[in-house]
């Protein structure tokens, strides 16, 4: 019987492509051919993705969309529902994001109700890393209210406990799952708080400690990925997830429901008693060297200047809050939060601003450096996965909702979440985040920030160095900086998107003032 699991997408990569097809003789058919060259790693990862969505996980959802130009859309019903048909290959987030997490060595939180395939996807990642299905299943840590640190990491050897005269003499029987390349923690919001803290050390620092003994958790490849599952990420579960652990989740991926049109496949699996993780083709397993090479290749994908500029503009919206402090630098959401204040109330009190234009008014916080680094890594990963030479705005936009979910928090009192058709965004965080980025890009284009970037020009001027810059030139640049500040002040409005520019102008002013003082002192 044909193996219905073992069907890979065609990979037509050959060497000497420019020379065409190498001639063969009939006698060549009866000689053992040399092993075919392995496909490039990005192609192998794409083959893996398509194998999972076509064979392993029944997931006919294509929510990570890519289109060149405007895609075809259909308005359905009378409540604003719209179905989009992207015109470039698009992907199922609940397979793509775990796969990219596997590739970059990330931490992926899979959320959704019971029985939606979250653990199956995670187990598949473990098998792709070279473990047997049995080993992976045995290594899955089941979150439960009685889970202790010893359950998680291992126990001190009883013999040593009796005989040791110091902690250093106590050997630990470490749990075997700790050094697996793919680590799976099921229902992590049912784990007691103390055990969550031990888990945090592993996730954040890459080691585990018990009785003064330490063990690194990274496998031979140096690439370890973590998969957590939870029924929700809104505070449900037996124990609240500690914020530091929640923050370590690089991406949050909602699991998709089952599409009833694919019941036949489900019936076939029930009848055959088959599990997808037991049928992963050997060609799709990534060895330790391949895992390190894959991560290195992803990190090497460049982020072009125009993409960086657009990303800078987006990030600039969220830190500032008018009325959050007195000194200009302290007018931030962090100032309000760390003082125990309510950001939403401060935003609401700012009656002079257009809350619909100021994107920063839609969030309760700014973005952490960790979140930004994660966004860059995943944007690189998806660009690499799509076979692109560089990261595009579309790559950033596609990954942004999954990275920022749970990190950029919506302001529930913002008028946008209160009225009309936009109200649905209060529960659909992913669409809200995607829209936030799209709106930021629209503002970027409308303000001409891609072509006219005076602050960027001033920064580049300083970056070029001060060698040969005399007092006259330094004075001229100071005047330019002050003129720019006057221009912003002249608008009579202040938005979050200006905050970082204003801080940068002050920084430049300081640098040139100090330099001018040094020049004058020297003369």
């Amino acid at each position, binding site marked *: 019987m044909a193996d219905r699991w073992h*069907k890979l*997408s*065609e*990979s*037509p*990569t*050959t060497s000497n*492509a*420019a020379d*065409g*097809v*190498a*001639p*063969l*003789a*009939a*006698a*060549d*058919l*009866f*000689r*053992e*051919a040399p092993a*075919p060259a392995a496909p490039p790693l990005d192609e192998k990862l*794409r083959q893996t993705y*398509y194998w999972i*969505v*076509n064979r392993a996980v029944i997931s006919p959802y294509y929510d990570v969309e890519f289109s060149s130009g405007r895609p075809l859309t259909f308005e359905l019903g009378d409540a604003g529902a719209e179905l989009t048909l992207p015109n*470039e*290959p698009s992907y199922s987030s609940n397979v793509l994001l775990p796969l990219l997490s596997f590739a970059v060595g990330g931490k992926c939180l899979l959320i959704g109700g019971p029985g939606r395939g979250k653990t199956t996807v995670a187990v598949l990642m473990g098998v792709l890393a070279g473990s047997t299905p049995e080993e992976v299943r045995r290594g899955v840590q089941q979150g439960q209210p009685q889970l202790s640190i010893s359950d998680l990491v291992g126990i001190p050897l009883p013999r040593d406990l009796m005989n040791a005269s110091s902690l250093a003499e106590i050997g630990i029987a470490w749990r075997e799952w700790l050094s697996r390349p793919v680590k799976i923690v099921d229902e992590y919001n049912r784990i007691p708080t103390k055990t969550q803290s031990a888990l945090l050390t592993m996730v954040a620092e890459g080691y585990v400690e018990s009785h003064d003994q330490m063990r690194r958790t990274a496998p031979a490849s140096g690439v370890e990925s973590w998969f957590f599952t939870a029924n929700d990420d809104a505070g449900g579960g037996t124990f609240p997830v500690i914020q530091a652990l929640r923050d370590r989740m690089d991406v949050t991926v909602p699991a998709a429901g089952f599409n009833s049109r694919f019941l036949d496949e489900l019936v076939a699996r029930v009848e055959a008693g088959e599990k997808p993780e037991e049928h992963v083709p050997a060609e799709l397993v990534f060895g330790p060297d391949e895992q390190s090479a894959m991560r290195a290749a992803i990190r090497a994908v460049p982020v072009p200047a125009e993409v960086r500029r657009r990303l800078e503009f987006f990030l600039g919206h969220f830190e500032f809050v008018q009325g959050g402090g007195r000194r200009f630098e302290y007018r931030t959401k962090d100032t309000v939060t760390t003082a125990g204040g309510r950001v939403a109330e401060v935003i609401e009190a700012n009656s002079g601003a257009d809350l619909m234009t100021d994107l920063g008014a839609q969030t309760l916080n700014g973005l952490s450096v960790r979140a930004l680094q994660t966004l860059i890594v995943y944007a690189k990963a998806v660009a690499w996965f*799509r*076979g*692109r*030479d560089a990261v595009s705005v579309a790559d950033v936009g596609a990954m942004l909702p999954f990275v920022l979910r749970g990190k950029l928090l919506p302001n529930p009192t913002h008028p946008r979440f209160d009225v009309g058709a936009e109200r649905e965004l209060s529960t659909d965080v992913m669409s809200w985040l995607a829209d936030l980025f799209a709106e930021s890009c629209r503002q970027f284009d409308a303000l001409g920030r891609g072509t006219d970037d005076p602050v960027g020009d001033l920064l580049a001027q300083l970056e070029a160095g001060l060698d040969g810059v005399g007092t006259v030139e330094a004075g001229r640049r100071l005047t330019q900086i002050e003129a720019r500040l006057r221009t912003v002040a002249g608008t009579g409005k202040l938005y979050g998107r200006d905050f970082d520019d204003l801080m940068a102008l002050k920084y430049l002013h300081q640098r040139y003032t100090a330099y001018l003082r040094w020049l004058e002192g020297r003369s």
Partner: protein
Amino acid sequence: MIRRPGHLADRTPPVGTPVPVEGLDLELAGRNVAAAGGSAERFAVSFAAGRAAGEGFDAIALAGIAGWRAGALGLRDDALRSIDAARSTGAGVAAAAALGMDAADLGAFVDRQRADRYWWPGRREANGYVCAVGGFRGLGGAWTAPPADGRPLDADGAFAVRTGERWWRIDADVWGSRLSPLDDEPEPGAAGAASVLTFADSYLAWIHVAAPA
């Protein structure tokens, strides 16, 4: 309907019972045919048909003909030489059976193939369409973007298309085709009787001969 890559000459699925031949590892040959871009299943059946029509013909040469018929493009020149040899020794029936055609058509087929690698007796009925190559990778094909900018290359039977930012070389004949990624955009060659057709709404590229007779 989802259209998939394939040759119009292969519209009918291979039928027949493969038979073992002492001293020949036909399973290995089938794997090598598949590695060369052909179909192991069609190879087994074509070889069996040739053997059934004339056991006296050299089995290795027959395997080469069957491999070419099954889509292993690299066997083309070798197979044409073997067919000439078969005709000169009166074993044309076996070669024709392996190719799935009447022995009476074999002479015309070989003569036409020398000048037109896309010819087979059924081409007129197919309105000149020879094969569709590529296809969407998610459905088992080769490409993640629709092909465009199709052009002939200088080599016989070679074309190039661009999918997204990547260029591909297509080599094809009546029975088989191969795709190979190119590092750079290739120089266009002189146009011949056959051309490569691409469509904005399809992941397939067609090889088409304007004068199908």
